[in-house]
């Protein structure tokens, strides 16, 4: 039932995107539209998080690294959005940019981030603090190192709660216990007094999830939450996230490099390559009809348990570092379907149907703006 609901929502949003209407609308109007929409009782609503043309550059000694090079995406309430891409393509920097946590020497140089209709791109630290962990929460790839080793689980959980909720320590503790239970952890009460090192990786990742859920965030950004875990544990964690998403309606941005995980979890997916979005759309569309040669290659190069192929498809060459390719399509050097134009011009995103977009000249000669 809920899946159906989401599909509808997706379609509605895709239409909006295609109209390219909302992007250029000032916030005040946005609110108006929203109000109108509510009045009319329509399910059409603005995305909870919207990123436009985000560009985050690292100003290193060896020059500028455009880790995130002008990406657009949005996520609606209650949705699970997948972001896939290989190592170094800018997935983490994207999420950190949204959180306002890009560290030196990185800087958001361009673009807009709207949360709940509000522009938070360059919001002051004070404002960001009220959002972080409260409205937007985040969990990281490494469960082993993401918890502070010298404080108890209880300390860290109650802290997460008490930063945003004016409640007593006792109440915070109760809430923490509840959260741990929600995350499916056994003996939640006893766990509060444990230190991270006394927990297994899977348990720690659950604690991280519990912590992220502490203040019922509207958006949860999960940056490769299961990469470090064994498959059986990964399954537990993924199931947990799905359950939370269903029960609390928290929108999840699921960052991963595992296409299997995306297929299992997400409704919509963004494929990133070297700091740019190369393809975007509903999971089914993309898995069934990958349009970008990179996406195609990626899908073909994953061994599938269900069949014994003699040889895997492999994309030649290496993933380039963002900024290392200055001319033409970023994928051009590895592309098997490359054309002359690919070497000279940068492709822009071409809209296919149903919000399926692809950055490739094969689908139309749209140049990057």
């Amino acid at each position: 039932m809920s899946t159906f609901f989401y599909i509808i929502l997706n379609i509605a949003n895709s239409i909006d995107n295609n109209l390219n209407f909302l992007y250029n609308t000032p916030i005040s109007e946005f609110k108006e539209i929203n109000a109108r929409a509510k009045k009319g009782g329509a399910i059409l609503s603005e995305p909870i998080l919207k990123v436009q043309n985000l560009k985050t550059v690292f100003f290193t000694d060896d020059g500028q690294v455009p880790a995130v090079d002008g990406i657009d995406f949005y996520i609606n309430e209650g949705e699970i959005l997948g972001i896939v891409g290989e190592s170094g393509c800018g997935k983490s920097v994207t999420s950190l940019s949204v959180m306002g946590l890009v560290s030196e020497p990185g800087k958001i140089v361009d673009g807009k981030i709207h949360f709940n209709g509000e522009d938070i791109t360059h919001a002051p630290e004070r404002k960001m603090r009220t959002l972080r962990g409260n409205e937007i929460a985040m969990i990281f790839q490494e469960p082993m190192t993401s918890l502070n080793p010298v404080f108890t689980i209880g300390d860290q959980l109650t802290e997460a709660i008490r930063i945003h909720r004016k409640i007593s320590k006792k109440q915070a503790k109760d809430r923490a216990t509840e959260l741990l239970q929600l995350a499916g952890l056994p003996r939640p009460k006893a766990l509060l007094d444990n230190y991270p090192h006394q927990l297994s990786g899977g348990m720690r990742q659950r604690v991280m999830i519990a912590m992220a859920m502490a203040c019922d965030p509207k958006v949860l950004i999960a940056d490769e939450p299961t990469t470090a875990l064994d498959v059986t544990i990964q399954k537990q964690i993924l199931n947990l996230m799905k359950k939370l998403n269903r029960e609390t309606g928290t929108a999840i941005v699921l960052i991963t490099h595992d296409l299997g995980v995306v297929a299992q979890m997400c409704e919509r997916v963004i494929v990133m390559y070297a700091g740019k979005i190369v393809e975007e759309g509903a999971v089914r569309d993309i898995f069934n009809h990958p349009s970008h040669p990179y996406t195609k290659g990626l899908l073909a190069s994953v061994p599938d348990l269900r069949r014994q192929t003699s040889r895997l498809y492999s994309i030649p060459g290496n993933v380039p570092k963002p900024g290392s390719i200055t001319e033409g399509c970023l994928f051009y050097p590895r592309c098997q379907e490359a054309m002359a134009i690919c070497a000279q011009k940068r492709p822009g995103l071409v809209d296919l149907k149903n919000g399926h977009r692809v950055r490739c000249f094969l689908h139309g000669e749209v140049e990057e703006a």
Partner: protein
Amino acid sequence: MLAYSIRRLIALIPVLIGMSLIVFGIIRAIPGDPALAILGQKATPEALKQLRHALGLDKPWYTQYFSFITDLLKGDFGTSLRTHAAIRQEIWPHLAATIELSVLAMLIAVVVGVNLGILSAWKQNSVIDVASMVIALVGVSMPVFWLGLMAQWIFSIKLGWLPSIGRENIRDPVTAITNFYIIDTLLAGRIDQFWEIIRHLILPSLALATIPMAIIARMTRSSMLEVLRSDYIRTARAKGQKMFWVVYKHALKNAFIPVLTVIGLQTGLLLGGAILTETIFGWPGIGSYIYDAIQYRDYPVIQSGILLVAFIFVIINLIIDLLYAAFDPRIKYK
């Protein structure tokens, strides 16, 4: 933890025995005759011979070592060759003087150094960072004795703000109870005297604190930088915690662990290495006590003094190890 400490202490025994052997060996290897040192320039050869006999210096070394060790095990440091006083009684005031000085110096070094390090790391590459790191670098680069001299010259000779030497106002001596004058004056209820003690402590403790402060600041900074890059700091920030608390709560407790090692090492160094500062500031501490004894070849005093300092050093390290457990729950001593 108690059991662990006891086991550590037991394990110290071979180290201490090794140390005592080395100290003993070194001292006997030092040329120069204690008898001559005692009797001085005017000594006659017969007198020297007789004194050597009286002091037991003509016995074979192993006999001397054995009696030294057996006495030591009985808690007896022996008597000074020169003053004939029981070392146990003589040494304490000196040790207390040095401890008082070192503890204060270390306190200054830790408080200032850690905060300087934190600020630098927090505001990496800012003016504050560069400034405090330059200060720290200059701090480790300047010879302490020179700094001490300069401080003395400026603050007590030129400006006359602070007393230049000693632990107390000589005209108003402290009645020693614990020999920690800060405590003694308070016990005696003499606030005026207490301030006088503090005034005497300021220059030498600052001079002594310079190097450890600089080292601690640098260590804190680099350790802090590493910690600030770690995932759990990102987690803490992602919770919406204020940067101040992220730094002072989450980062510091982790970053402090390597700093702790440095603090332990430096405290040990201060105890034994205060000689120069003690000389300059006329501080009647253990360093000058031992140095004096070396000059006079006062074997029992050198032996006991160095061993005591080394022992304290080892104990400090043990305490530091136990403190690790307090800071880092991953370390468990059982």
